[in-house]
């Protein structure tokens, strides 16, 4: 499969703050690529660099096999984006907003195309209403229509579920899946709502404090056989030292104060048996296999970089 986005050693520094540091990743054609991180992790800065809103301090971005810095307009003709809040011209109607951005995207959109697009996002009956009368969900849907009006190959959605109610979140999820499965679009979607990414993305990257923590296939990251198991014993420090002398040493995670092992779920009984044999008092054993647990465990270990895909 062809690479749609190739980011190499991307960095952005604002005065003393390293917003993004040495970030590299690849998005393949047809991917729904999840971009995960807590607030302030560097997701939006990275996405804004993909859209040329922010100039990188270092590194390179290649989209559709072309360098973004030298082929900006050609590339952006094939990119649609919703960047954070879907802010549009409040004093204009939905139809006028869509017409303006269609024109800016370089296409001649007739009334039928514009109305079809509004119908797709369920706003055809409010086409002539001013955006200032719209709810957050309606604005978000109009933002999606604006992003899709020129039929882009690549769609970038930065926190698309922000401010939406549960129904709106579900609608957005369905739309992303529809765009990917039925229309074959490549989609980059960022969020701090991990459960949302879990449901739509096939590949993902976790970013923390501007650095890549992990990148890989969601299915592999969620693979129960690669579970993270957290154990609580009467003396975690002593248990860690004992485990370091065993075959489990390579599975031990550097989580301060907690005893975590990355291991196959099937091996848990054997581990417990060995701990008992070592006269360790086991209080609890918790397999952590949701993406959220995994994410939380990783983002507290800065500098931990690995790729599950490889």
């Amino acid at each position, binding site marked *: 499969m062809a690479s749609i986005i190739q980011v190499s050693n991307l960095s952005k520094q*604002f005065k003393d703050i390293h917003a993004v540091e040495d970030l590299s990743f690849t998005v393949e054609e047809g991917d729904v690529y999840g971009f995960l991180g807590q607030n302030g992790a560097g997701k939006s800065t990275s996405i*804004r660099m993909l*859209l*040329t*809103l*922010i*100039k990188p301090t270092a590194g390179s971005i290649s989209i559709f096999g072309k360098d973004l810095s030298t082929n*900006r*307009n*050609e*590339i*952006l*003709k094939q*990119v649609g*984006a919703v*960047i*954070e*809040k879907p*802010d*549009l*011209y*409040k*004093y*204009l109607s939905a139809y*006028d907003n869509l017409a*303006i*951005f269609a*024109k*800016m*995207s*370089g296409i001649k959109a007739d009334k039928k195309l514009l109305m079809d697009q509004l119908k797709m996002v369920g706003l055809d009956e409010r086409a002539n209403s001013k955006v200032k009368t719209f709810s957050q969900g309606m604005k978000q849907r109009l933002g999606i229509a*604006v992003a899709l009006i020129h039929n882009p190959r690549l769609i970038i959605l930065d926190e698309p579920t922000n401010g939406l109610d549960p129904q709106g979140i579900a609608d957005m999820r369905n739309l992303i899946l529809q765009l990917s499965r039925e229309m074959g679009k490549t989609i980059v979607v960022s969020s701090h709502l991990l459960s949302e990414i879990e449901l739509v993305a096939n590949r993902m990257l976790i970013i923390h404090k501007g650095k890549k923590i992990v990148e890989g296939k969601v299915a592999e990251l969620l693979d129960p056989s690669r579970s993270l198991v957290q154990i609580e014993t009467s003396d975690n420090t002593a248990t860690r030292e004992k485990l370091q002398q065993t075959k489990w040493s390579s599975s031990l995670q550097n989580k301060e104060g907690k005893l975590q092992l990355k291991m196959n779920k099937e091996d848990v009984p054997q581990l417990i048996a060995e701990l008992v044999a070592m006269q360790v008092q086991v209080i609890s054993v918790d397999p952590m296999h949701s993406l959220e647990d995994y994410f939380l465990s990783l983002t507290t270990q800065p500098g931990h970089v690995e790729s599950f895909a490889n």
Partner: protein
Amino acid sequence: MWNLLQIELYKIFRKPRTYLAFAIIAAFIFLIQLGLLVNGKDWMKFMLGSLDETMAFNYDELINGYAVCFVVLNLLLVHVPILVALVAGDVVSGEASMGTLRLLAAKPVSRTQIILAKYFATAVYVFALLLWIAIISLVISIAVFGTNDLVVAKTNGLQVIESNDVLWRYFCAFGFAFIAMMVVAAISLLLSVLSENSIGPIVATVGIIIVCTLISEMEIPIYQKYIKPYLFTTYMLGWKGFFYIGSTDDNETIRGSIQYLPGILKSIAALLVYIVALVGASVFIFRKKDILS
């Protein structure tokens, strides 16, 4: 570029704020016209002061459409920059505060084109504003008060411009005012690029104009010598020069002449240099700017 200009014009002329300036101007001019219609002779006597005692004036001829327009321009053109700033100061910063700037800048058009389209659209707005002033102050005044010779006060007395020698001077004056207002628009544009809220650039533009005007008018030698020649406000009132008519050695006015044409041309050149420098700076900064709004 034409597409972008159309879009920018559409955005400017769909904003209610844009029409505020037109309404303010209409109200202001109608008030002046009404005042002069009702009480124009007394006002003119007051303005002429002691000259009224030494010379015989026909006030019915003095208060004509050309004279009313001249009064309007003297009173109004000083305040038009505020109305220009109201729109020009908002073109970039307004989009930043509304959140649409990031959408705009992520589209396949260059940032240079975006800024130039915004500036040209502002130029159309300024042109429309001045055309509106011309229609109301000149056309309506002529319709109501009729035409006659225009009497203009100069430092060394009064001069009379024949009625058939006046109209072209107004066209030139409005043309000059357009260039002067485009300097104001360029200042507002630059401040708008630097800001992320609408009010800041508008207030800052007005502040700059007030400070520069005060310095220009202060008769302090050091200011006159070292600062005044470089202030744009020094050249902004050059439109009045079109109403200073040339005269012979016998003090006979020369029809179709302008007394200080080189001075007017110098003012136009200075204002154009300001426009190029300010718009150039706006483009340069906007191209480098990280859009974080």
